[in-house]
């Protein structure tokens, strides 16, 4: 199996999935890159998690009220859903279509919203915006239930344009005016939720979307140059055909799947790093009639995605750090105790899932890292990777042993980096790792004592690799 094929497949699976074990990476290489991309893009054609079975083992996940349970169930799916790109896209939309528990205060509604992203996140963008605009959690989060024919609340109308579809501007121009915000908000009056029961003492009931024609502003509106008695549906149609929407989506997909871009508020004035890539994604958006999967197909099959220059060019977000490390070492691939604690780890690393800091979401890239979160990231990954008693880590040790009866320190370091990525590190880092390995000399695994020492040193080297700055990237 050619090294470059393994490296490319590992790259695809770090981005389009939450990583994979070495065995899985090699199995996918055998399947062929194009086939794997197609498999990722057509989740409906292959089995996912069997919900019936999951709920039998974890009845608490069923319509769970507690936010912690909903987060835990999501982390379980991130680790185990065979339709990995669905989970990756659910996280993608959660990071853009931000709504948070701090205001919604209902774990069940947050769980329903993520399920909507999971089910429809690779579908048609116009359709997704409709589902978002009728999501009770979003209606409540952005106060559309407080927006009335006689007393307009612009919150949803504004964020729909600024943060969910057009973006503030592109190519230094503004994408919409304040009048467009007002027209948009007026078009969505009456898009409301049915009054929910009070939560105490019996707990919450699910919320329902309800259109209230009596509270809908029926008068004429002009939105992005189009005039008529526009309602929310018409506004979404107009939004979907804007070049700005194509740009917004293309740039978000590039930022999430290819390489870290500047923070979103800077997009109006800062052009994309790779304009040709953005052009190709925009083209796919219009050619397909706004299909997100069509954009993803172009992206994963493109040279700009496969290029070596973009590998490890993105800082892992905390969910990626936690889930991909677990998948690399093969832990929690079935239901086992301890998942609750693990599902809290992204929060310790600065990503409180289902509770983004604001509607603008988390700042990504290097902003994931501060002195507190870096300690959490390093300790989490090195504890797992260094634990040679875990079967997944043991299998990496076995693979390393299979490389030869005796490994020189350099071969040993090279092997460890290969099996934890393949990870590319700077020359400085490589020098340090090699000089550390040199202190222990050559490694053999003939006798039981040698095998034990081999395993110990491998675990130690994995810990140091997990502690590198390079391991913070994907």
């Amino acid at each position, binding site marked *: 199996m050619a090294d470059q094929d393994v490296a490319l497949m590992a790259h695809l699976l770090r981005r389009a999935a939450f990583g994979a074990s070495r065995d899985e990476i090699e199995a996918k290489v055998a399947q062929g890159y194009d086939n794997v991309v197609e498999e990722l893009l057509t989740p409906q054609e292959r089995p996912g998690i069997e919900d019936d079975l999951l709920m039998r083992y974890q009845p608490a996940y069923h319509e769970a009220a507690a936010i912690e349970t909903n987060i835990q169930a999501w982390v379980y799916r991130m680790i185990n859903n065979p339709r990995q790109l669905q989970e990756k896209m659910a996280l993608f939309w959660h990071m853009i279509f931000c709504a*948070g*528990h*701090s205001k919604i*205060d209902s774990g069940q509604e947050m769980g329903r919203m993520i399920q909507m992203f999971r089910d429809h996140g690779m579908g048609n963008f116009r359709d997704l915006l409709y589902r978002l605009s009728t999501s009770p959690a979003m209606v409540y989060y952005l106060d559309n239930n407080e927006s009335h024919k006689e007393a307009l609340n612009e919150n949803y109308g504004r964020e729909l344009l600024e943060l969910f579809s057009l973006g503030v501007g592109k190519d230094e121009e503004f994408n919409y005016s304040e009048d467009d915000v007002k027209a948009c908000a007026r078009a969505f009056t009456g898009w409301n939720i049915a009054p929910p029961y009070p939560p105490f003492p019996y707990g919450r009931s699910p919320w329902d979307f309800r259109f209230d024609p009596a509270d809908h502003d029926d008068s004429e509106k002009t939105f992005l140059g189009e005039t008529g008695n526009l309602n929310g549906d018409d506004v979404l149609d107009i939004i979907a055909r804007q070049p700005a929407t194509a740009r917004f989506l293309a740039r978000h997909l590039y930022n999430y799947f290819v390489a870290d871009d500047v923070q979103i508020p800077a997009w109006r004035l800062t052009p994309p790093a790779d304009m040709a890539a953005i052009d190709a994604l925009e083209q796919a958006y219009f050619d397909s009639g706004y299909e997100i999967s069509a954009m993803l197909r172009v992206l994963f099959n493109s040279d700009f995605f496969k290029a070596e220059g973009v590998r490890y060019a993105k800082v892992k977000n905390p969910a990626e750090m936690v889930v991909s490390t677990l998948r690399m070492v093969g832990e929690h691939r079935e239901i086992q105790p301890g998942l609750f604690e693990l599902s*809290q780890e992204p*929060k310790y690393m600065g990503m409180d899932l289902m509770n983004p800091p604001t509607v603008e979401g988390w700042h990504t890239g290097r902003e994931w890292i501060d*002195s507190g979160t870096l*300690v959490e990231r390093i300790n989490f990954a090195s504890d797992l990777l260094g634990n040679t008693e875990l079967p997944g880590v043991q299998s990496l040790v076995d693979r390393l042993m299979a490389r030869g009866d005796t490994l020189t320190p350099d071969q040993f370091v090279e092997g460890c980096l290969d099996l934890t990525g393949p990870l590319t590190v700077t020359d400085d880092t490589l020098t340090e790792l090699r000089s*550390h390995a040199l202190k222990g000399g050559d490694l053999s695994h003939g006798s039981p004592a040698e095998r034990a020492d081999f395993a110990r040193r491998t675990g*130690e080297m994995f810990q140091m690799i997990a502690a590198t700055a390079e391991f913070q990237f994907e």
Partner: protein
Amino acid sequence: MVSTQKDPVLAVLSLSGGNDGLNTVIPYANPLYRDYRPKLGIAEGQVIPLNDELGFHPTMGPLKKFWDEGKLAIFLGVGYNNPSYSHFRSMDIWHTCEPDKIGTEGWLGRALKEIDPNAENVLTGVNFGRGLPRALVMDGVPVASVGNLETYGLLTGIEGENQRDQALDVFGRMYSPAVGRSAVLDYIHSTGTNALKGADILATAPDKYTSNVEYSSTVVGQYMKNIAQTHLAEFGSRVLYTTSPYNGFDTHANQAVLHSGLWSDVSNNVETFMADLKDHDASDNVVLLMFTEFGRRIGDNGSGTDHGAGGVAFAVGDHVKGGIYGEYPSLEPSQQEEGGNLRFNTDFRSIYTTIIEDWFRMDAQPIVGGSYEKVKFL
């Protein structure tokens, strides 16, 4: 205005979940209290009286001592306009001082930026607990977040002191500055170096520490001890923060038992903490603030109490002017906050303003986001 020889330090204990103020500082002589608390009312004979009207919950004896010494400030009716009944949102408002929009910076983060603008000391602010509370978040302010002081550090999973020392040595060299790296990689390297520095310094705190007092083995006890250890080690930390177990004070049910346990734990550990500092002649420059995100419903629900509005907060310290600040919110139905709750009369930002101006001697306005009348407890 207070002046101490040493730099002023603020310790914070956040009581997570919404403490029931009505059964903490009890209006025991008010007949309405009896009417509203048929199940959960504390019998007059059990209340620890502070004066003719108000008294402490029976488990708060250790705090009463500070009251008698004139070192305990009790803030009544603390809150803000248009109260949020969501734990998360209300805690966020207390953390960010932003009741009308979602804020991303914490008031203490902004204070730390002012205290140590160039982040020269990586331990100016230290949090005890996993994950950083929003109160301490601020761009360019490194705050160490310590889950367990005894074992805090990098690569703590490596067994064998020698092995770990070697690994940390490699880490230190891998993260040392070098030319020609990308900006992001550079940033991560300097962050890693800061983290290592902070961990190295913090790791010495437990060894330097000797004490004649015993904290409880609870989370509150252990983190209060960690705060004392860090303060006594003289690392120059100015804000030391911790939070009681998440939503522990959220006593919707079985409150009689739970609330007693919570306050006995807090009172005992606060007493121990202050005694510990005093034994080491290190209490002079510390103020301890205790707050919660909201109070609870006036009427009990038969077993517990639901989320409410105006609550109580406390400050303890050698330089605290003991007393009662603010009015006890009226229990009269016509005077209540909508939904059967106590109406606030002391804005929490007034307490913050006093701490920032009279303790840290800084301008509070940009830190708390406005001008608030001070509560003269310092």
